[in-house]
């Protein structure tokens, strides 16, 4: 199976494959909705249509639409189009992975420390900025956020060990 695009560039996953994978995922989602609706009851009860009545038909439409999409992709032209080149996907993953770790870290080390780390990693790793600039933005934004949210608007954000150490 050739995975090279017509443009000859870096190549990448084929658009068709991603389309079919996505449509399969939405089919599965629709099936889950149908299953959940049947659990909740799709018939008429004493109070009229039961809780699963409406979502049941939503599930049917999701499955139907997804199957039509799969069929359209299978018969459609442009078989060799790539979804994105590997190099582009590498850049996208370079955002998703640190952002995913960031999101996972927030409950443990707090919003402020996690944000500072994210900005530092980004600016020094992807942007290749020197340490001074990265520290300025990385520390500046959380401090401004702290003043605006905790002091001006009195909205508390998640805090971790560092803030406890500083007595907030």
């Amino acid at each position, binding site marked *: 199976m050739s995975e090279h695009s017509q443009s000859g560039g870096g190549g990448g996953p084929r*658009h068709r494959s*991603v*389309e079919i994978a*996505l449509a399969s995922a*939405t089919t599965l989602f629709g099936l*889950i*909705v149908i299953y*959940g*609706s049947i659990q*909740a*009851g799709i018939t*008429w*009860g004493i*109070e*009229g*249509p039961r*809780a*699963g*009545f*409406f*979502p049941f038909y*939503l*599930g049917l*439409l*999701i499955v*139907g*639409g997804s199957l*039509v*999409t799969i069929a*359209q992709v299978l018969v459609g032209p442009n078989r060799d189009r790539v*979804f*994105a080149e590997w190099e*582009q996907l590498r*850049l*996208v993953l370079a*955002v*998703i992975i640190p*952002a995913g770790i*960031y*999101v*996972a870290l*927030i*409950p443990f080390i707090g*919003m402020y420390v996690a*944000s500072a780390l*994210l*900005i530092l990693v*980004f*600016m020094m790793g*992807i942007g290749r*900025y020197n340490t001074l600039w990265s520290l300025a933005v990385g520390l500046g*934004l*959380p401090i401004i*956020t702290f003043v605006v*949210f905790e002091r001006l*608007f*009195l*909205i*508390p*954000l998640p805090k971790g060990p560092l803030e406890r150490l500083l007595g907030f």
Partner: protein
Amino acid sequence: MEEVANLFHGFAVVLQPYNIMLMLVGIVLGVIIGVLPGLGGANGIAILLPLTFAMPPTSAIIMLSCIYWGALFGGAITAILFNIPGEPWSVATTFDGHPMAQQGKAGEALTTAFTSSFVGAFVAVVMITFFAPLIADFALKFGPAEFFSVYFLTFASFVGLDKSPAAKTIVSMMIGFALAAVGLDSITGQLRLTFGFTSLLNGFDFLIAVIGLFGIGEILIAMEEGLAFRGVRAGINVKVVWETWKDLVKYWKTALLGSFIGCWMGIKPGGATPGSFMSYGVAKKLSPNGAKFGSGHPEGIVAPETAAHAAGTSALLPMISLGIPGSPTAAVLLGGLLIWGLQPGPLMFVEQKEFVWGLIASMYLGNVVGLIVVLTCVPLFAAILRIPFSVIAPVILVLCAIGAYTVHNSTFDVVMMMIFGVVGYIMRKCDYPLAPMVLAIVLGDKAEEAFRQSLLASQGSLTIFWSNGLVATIMALGLVALFWPLIQSGLAQLRTRARQAY
């Protein structure tokens, strides 16, 4: 002329110093949001929404709607100076805007765009002032069946009028409805689709979806495209503005045409983008200067900008009068109303007079203030775009995370936002429209309620949706919108056959 008296009362509300300050803050934030990649009107407002929980609702809506006007203005800056449409409806503005900027007439192009935006918005606001109370009054007689038919029309328009494949639009929309259905069923009080996960008890909040789909998704797209901003410098001074204005007067016909197309298209969901293209196309055909379009002709900026802004503004008409938003941004504003404890819909004109007319008055003043701010601060806003993406991306990520967290003070929501972001990126790459999904999450519960209440009244018979002239007309319009592509090709075939017959 009760509207005029109400409107002046609204002006009195808006002209308090605190509200004027919020208006200025809103416009400046809005332009910044409109200029930055990854932040648009919808998710920008979603992120800032929690900050307004403590404000009085009227002040809050003034600030948020001004962010919306600012974002609309901001889209034109990136389109003209950088050839990057900040929002989809700015695409048509790049056709003539960027060539003008490259010819060294950036100041003129920007002045033309801002002034046209202002004119378009102004026409739409005048229309809202007089039509919104009428529609609301009319809608007071609506029962559940009529409301469901309006929801049906709204969502059917997405399927028929969107350029995405119909099957994908339906899948995207129904996923939105299904997400809205998760959690407590509002009629029977029963839990559904939670599968035993306690974190799903409250369902999915559309604000989280908006921040993820539009915020994170947009950053991922921008990252993939490896945006390198190469812009044209712009200087605007009083002389340029004055000269441009003198020149613009002769395009009044195009401006009016654009405004009307915009108003008409904007009431339907997702109408701003097709409206701007339609206006550009019609103006090109009708104008004596049509041949110059595309090479940097001011009229080619006037047409799409008036339409886009008129559409963006008139998208608020169904939101105020029926409680049905015409765009994702209007949906976020509607979400704000619910959070502040206001029930959007026809009753608002009766029960929340001060709020509604304050909002309408702020539309007038907000656009005047917006015009002044953008005309004076363009270099400043353009400078923001020169900040490299590797600095902007993490900052926007952090702002999105904070926005998602503050909606319910939940770190689970931040994780959900990230998931919505990645799924949104893949869906967008595969041509699934995201706006219908967001609107479905917002309106899901109400649409379902209207549907089930109608069926209760009719003992389960679908004929209730055809039971009187009003509901039947709206349903018929919905069906026409739903099958519009088929009807269109059918008409085209008839025409060619008729031609062959001669």
